[in-house]
């Protein structure tokens, strides 16, 4: 019985240790487990982000709360600008972090870029984003006008910008 208990404790320690490693030390998310601080090389942001569209997801890190959080999110480089797209059905964890502190670190090809997420609230700007977004993320082609139905799920959009000195939460 003592050996069984020891085996159980060892297994739990192994699982807990694995989770802690993934969450804090792995340098990014591991499978479905969010990660901590991204380990890429700091780099200056490019003027045109269109190259990022070859990636299916964008790797981002938020340091808004006590522990850094990193994960893969939907995005679109549109007209050279990087946009984050956070569907509410995936939860609002990153949105709440961005509400507290809009600064983000973005990693592409081992390079880490400091950015600030600015919410896209203007209907016209959102409509402009929507057609390429739903085409890329959902393979849906839209024709005609777009109207908000104002119920159910939402899609929070952010435009990423270079941080100005002293910006952030």
């Amino acid at each position: 019985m003592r050996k069984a208990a020891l085996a159980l404790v060892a297994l739990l320690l192994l699982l807990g240790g694995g989770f802690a490693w993934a969450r804090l030390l792995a340098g990014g998310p591991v499978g479905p487990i969010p990660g901590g601080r991204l380990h890429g090389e700091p780099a200056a942001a490019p003027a045109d982000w269109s190259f990022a569209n070859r990636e299916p997801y964008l790797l981002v890190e938020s340091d808004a709360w006590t522990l850094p959080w990193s994960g893969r999110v939907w995005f679109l480089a549109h007209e050279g600008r990087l946009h984050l797209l956070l569907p509410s059905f995936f939860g609002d964890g990153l949105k709440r972090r961005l509400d507290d502190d809009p600064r983000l670190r973005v990693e592409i090809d081992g390079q880490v870029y400091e950015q600030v997420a600015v919410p896209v609230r203007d209907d016209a700007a959102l409509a402009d984003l929507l057609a390429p977004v739903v085409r890329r993320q959902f393979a849906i082609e839209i024709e005609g006008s777009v109207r908000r139905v104002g119920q159910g799920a939402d899609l929070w959009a952010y435009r990423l910008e270079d941080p100005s000195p002293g910006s952030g939460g």
Partner: protein
Amino acid sequence: MTRAWFLALATLLCACGPWGPKGIFAGGPYLGAAEPLPADASFADPEPLIGIETRSGWLRHSVTILCLVSEGRLYVMARHAPTKRWVRDVVADPRVRLEIGGRLYAGRAVRVDGSADEDARIARAFLRKYVGVDVDAARFLAGAPEAGDDHAEIWSFRIDPPAGPHGGRSEGAS
């Protein structure tokens, strides 16, 4: 020593199921019996995510997925569909069990890839439910993206009531 290994193995297995997916983590089979999915599945529409259990031989695999209801029929969809295990499973064996609002339902997954009307209807319903917008017209892009095109490959499935006597009533967990 055997007992210790048995307990360790049991703990490991329990971490993978057998009780369906837990959030972002896939799971094994759902426990309990399922009732046939009703012909009118409108009750499922308010659910942002539902669980689906698929079959691969004697194994059961379950994940949470998007769903919508159009004209009373339940639809589920997969992004980057060919890479998803549950999609490969239902293509090989369409029998599924769904966890909707805490209850289990049995059904058959039928791929939607022929009717332009049905395709357009569910594309608009999807946008209303998950993006919060209504549009004049919409359609899913068919097939895999061509080289240089970065759109996701979406496959949609309609969930019909199960085939067989009594609509496959009370299909068990295994």
